[in-house]
């Protein structure tokens, strides 16, 4: 299945090639339009920069204090009943806040148990079907200036939980 990694290398160049050639065919002022669009991108980043600083400090403090590990330990009795390995609890939790922090924890599992182990396979599937809940919600709602997020968090947690349950069941069924 190496061709998929190979194929991914082609996606961005292909998107560029396709859009630029369509632009040339339709005689669009491609360069002027590109510059115009790029300026919009600057505005979006400047808008989210303060959000990102605040959020990353919050996550950094939680991680450095050991509060996330403590939470995983507290959850251990519950995860035992649910047949979910407590080794993967910190990853499932951190993934809700920060994708890159979760990635470093996943690499740690691969190093310790191997990617083809039970944990390795389960965490691979889990990372494929979940997203960073709190990061995505904060950035998107802060940019829109929305304070009351209603049932978004409940829905996101439900979908993520369904993904985690599916990962556990599929790992046991398929491998």
């Amino acid at each position, binding site marked *: 299945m190496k061709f998929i990694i190979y194929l991914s290398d082609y996606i961005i160049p292909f998107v560029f090639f396709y859009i630029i050639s369509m632009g040339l065919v339709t005689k669009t002022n491609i360069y002027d339009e590109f510059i115009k669009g790029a300026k919009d991108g600057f505005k979006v980043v400047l808008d989210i920069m303060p959000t990102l600083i605040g959020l990353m400090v919050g996550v950094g*403090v939680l991680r450095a204090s050991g*509060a996330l590990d403590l939470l995983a330990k507290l959850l251990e009795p519950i995860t035992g009943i649910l047949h979910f390995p407590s080794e993967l609890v910190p990853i499932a939790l951190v993934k809700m806040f920060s994708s890159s922090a979760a990635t470093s924890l996943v690499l740690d599992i691969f190093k310790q148990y191997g990617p083809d182990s039970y944990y390795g396979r389960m965490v691979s599937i889990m990372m494929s079907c979940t*997203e960073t809940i709190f990061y995505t919600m904060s950035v998107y709602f802060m940019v829109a200036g929305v304070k009351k997020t209603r049932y978004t968090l409940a829905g996101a947690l439900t979908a993520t939980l369904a993904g985690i349950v599916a990962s556990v069941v599929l790992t046991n069924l398929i491998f």
Partner: protein
Amino acid sequence: MLNYLWGIMIIIGITVGILRGNIAEVSNATLNSSKEAVSLCVTMLGIMAMWTGLMQVAKKCGLVASFTKALRPILRYLFPDIPKDHIVNEYIASNMIANILGLGWAATPMGLMAMKELKKLNQNSNVASCDMCTFLIINISSLQLIPVNIIAYRSQYGSANPSEILGAGIIATIISTFVGVVFSMVARKSSNRRGQQ
């Protein structure tokens, strides 16, 4: 909600840090995380400006419109409150297409534009509309079909068959997205019912 979420993160972090004797690490984390955020933004400035620039070209030559048309029947079903030819349809469609292809970083600019437009459609209220909730729940349910990064990590750590989890990953992604869609529809219906009373 974000007020409390962020506040609780900081308070719990510092309290636990003191109790467990990790206060030096906590102190460093506040400094390092803020620096990390800015360097991340500098990288994002380039990538985001490049992408919104390219998307502007795609928009101008009618490409996004044709992609959006292909997604339109699904969007009508998921977002019944959005006017039929509103620009936000294009943003949501491009965001979803980029997410499905695994270009998460490329999806974010379009997603943020979509949120800004949804806010205008919602009379600039600071309460989320049903469309915003649906959009974010589907986004967070993960749309990416092929997790190329996971396959790369697995191969790097000596997996005999790095892509063996692909099938299971696709099924799990479909399940989580399906649950997210069902949740959004049920929540929209019950909030509409409450609105009528």
